[in-house]
């Protein structure tokens, strides 16, 4: 986003448009941990000086801080990528029961096609599971409009609202008209034990409320313009949502559409009414058969994509085959693969790990790219923090193998600390490498507690990783620059041959750190 933000129109991504919409809706607090394709939401919000915006330690913490702010009376937002929501699922599930005071929206960006993710889970199921309403914009313009609706719905129905985008919405740019910020009056924060203390007796009462709320939200889903019928050719009717709608309109401009923007609760009456008006009904959506299964449960006959298209993203040129119900033809990608930058300090660390022929429990960050040939020196990538815990787990069944774990500095703070405490407490041994490039590099270089700077690059309390690792119970904690190869190799050889739990902080800053 350029400095042109004062002009009335701007070319904004879905992430940026959503941030502007939230700002105009009177947002006060926003919390997130960086994650592609959601990162730019907080980066954009951080440019508004009157907002309270933070990179949190992880998504669970971010969710709780933002929800707490909403319960204290100010409109708040939490943003994450799909896998980030897994980390925040614990507070999310019970926040469905507590509800809110001022508006609260959880923005989740899914990544069909896994442009930069470890799986392509479909977050829409979470709406059923948590009994929370879900909005699904299909363009940046809708992202800006829907976030405002989300705050209204949140306050009217006393509920967190999930707003789900996908990569092709979050990272599409569109011309957007900017508006004025309007801050709603702040409701007073008061103690409310039956609502906010989820002990069994209170939670039972709130569960009754949740089920009643779902019924009311279903009525809203029937009425809202976000779920709209576009009457066209009566021979073909598409029920669709998100970017799939855009691809369909490109290929079948004259067909009839039920375009869903509020995908949960389902608008059954509208779906049934639409089905009656068209000769052949199609349900076309990306990833899982979320809409399809529900439409079929209403007793409607419809054609949907072949299950092979559950895998990967839809693209405009695939649409005719999807609509015809054909099987997906797998085409081998010839895309150039990303690799570690030539100057990257991780090269040196992994050269040593490869030379010593370790089994390397990996984690999530730039260094995951060390799995690629010819290096091939990283042997797992599951989730944030598992580089630390897999070191412990692998040793259970393979005590004869040479096993180490690696984790990035930001990833260690996000989810590695508890694993290290667990290893110390349960007498696990081995070497954990904290690959400290002093930034959150993979998502573009965001600050984290170990950099000592906030999201706005203001100095703050700096987390000293070596002190923390000592306090967690590591027997040895060394800090070393991996580019000092001889010294680094000697230290690694020494530590791996000890019967101890050691942490080697392999520290060399990323060249791409923003100045």
């Amino acid at each position, binding site marked *: 986003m350029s400095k042109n933000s004062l002009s009335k129109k701007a070319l904004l991504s879905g992430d940026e448009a959503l941030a502007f919409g939230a700002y105009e809706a009177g947002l006060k607090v926003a919390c997130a941990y960086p994650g592609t394709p959601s990162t730019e939401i907080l980066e954009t919000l951080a440019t508004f000086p009157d907002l309270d915006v933070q990179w949190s330690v992880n998504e669970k913490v971010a969710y709780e801080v933002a929800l707490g702010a909403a319960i204290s009376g100010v409109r708040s937002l939490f943003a994450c990528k799909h896998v980030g929501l897994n980390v925040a699922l614990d507070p999310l599930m019970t926040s469905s029961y507590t509800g809110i005071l001022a508006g609260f929206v959880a923005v989740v960006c899914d990544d069909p096609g896994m442009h930069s993710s470890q799986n392509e889970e479909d977050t829409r199921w979470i709406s059923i599971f948590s009994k929370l309403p879900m909005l699904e914009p299909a363009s940046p313009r809708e992202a800006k409009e829907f976030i405002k609706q989300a705050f209204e719905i949140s306050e009217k129905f006393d509920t967190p609202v999930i707003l789900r985008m996908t990569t092709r919405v979050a990272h599409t740019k569109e011309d957007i008209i900017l508006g004025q910020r309007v801050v709603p009056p702040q409701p007073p924060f008061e103690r409310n034990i039956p609502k906010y203390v989820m002990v069994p007796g209170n939670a039972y009462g709130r569960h009754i409320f949740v089920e009643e709320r779902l019924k009311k939200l279903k009525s809203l889903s029937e009425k809202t313009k976000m779920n709209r019928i576009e009457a066209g050719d009566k021979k073909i009717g598409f029920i669709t949502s998100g970017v799939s709608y855009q691809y369909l309109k490109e290929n079948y401009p004259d067909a009839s559409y039920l375009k869903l923007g509020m995908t949960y609760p389902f608008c059954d009456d509208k779906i049934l009414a639409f089905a009656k008006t068209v000769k052949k009904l199609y349900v076309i959506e990306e990833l899982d058969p979320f809409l399809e299964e529900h439409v079929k449960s209403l007793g409607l006959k419809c054609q949907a994509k072949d299950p092979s298209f559950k895998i990967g993203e839809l693209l*405009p040129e695939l649409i005719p085959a999807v609509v015809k119900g054909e099987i997906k033809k797998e085409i081998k990608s010839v895309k150039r693969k990303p690799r570690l930058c030539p100057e990257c300090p991780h090269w040196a660390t992994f050269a040593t790990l490869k030379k010593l022929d370790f089994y390397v429990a990996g984690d999530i960050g730039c260094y995951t790219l060390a799995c690629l040939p010819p290096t091939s020196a990283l042997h797992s990538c599951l989730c944030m923090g598992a580089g630390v815990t897999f070191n412990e787990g692998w040793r259970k069944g393979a005590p004869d193998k040479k096993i180490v774990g690696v984790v990035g500095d930001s990833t260690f703070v996000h989810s590695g600390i508890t694993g290290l405490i667990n290893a110390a407490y349960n007498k696990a041994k081995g070497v954990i490498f904290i690959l400290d490039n002093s930034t959150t590099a993979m998502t573009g270089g965001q600050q984290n507690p170990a950099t000592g700077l906030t999201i706005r690059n203001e100095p703050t309390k700096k987390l000293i990783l070596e002190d923390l690792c000592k306090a967690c119970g590591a027997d040895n904690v060394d800090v070393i620059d991996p580019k000092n190869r001889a010294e680094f190799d000697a230290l690694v050889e020494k530590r791996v041959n000890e019967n101890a739990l050691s942490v080697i902080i392999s520290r060399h800053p990323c060249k791409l750190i923003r100045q």
Partner: protein
Amino acid sequence: MENKIYNITFGGTGGQGILKAAEICGWAAMYAGFHIKKSEVHGMAQRGGSVESHVRFGKQVFSPIVQQGWADVLVCFHPEEHERLKTFLKPDGKDLIEYLDKAQKAIENPRHLNVFLVGVLSAFLPIKPDFWQQAIEATFKKKYVDENKGVFLKGREMGQS
């Protein structure tokens, strides 16, 4: 406004300024009064992987991605990426790969390649020069605006000749 949708596909590798080139084109189309959608995928772009971006503008645009075989103009910054992306071009589309060598020779600073090629591209699109200038002002820091306007004009001359 006519109903035609203009489709432009940009491609290259991380660090070549592909996203910036598409960004300039997007702002120019916006200033010209078109509805515009631009798609890009980043996250790993800094790691030298393939980068592509699509710009579509017209009266009303739906898909943010250019469909295979629909691109009016293909702008590639790298011969290998051109091999991969040439199927996006429609049969009578304009392929700017013919300008890549000439462009590289015409610029003094390799970092100018993207803006130079945007200049070439501008010669084939129905967007007036003023809007391109405004787009450069919107997408560059002030101290780089004049330099890039100059590079753009040289590229535009090459595209028009």
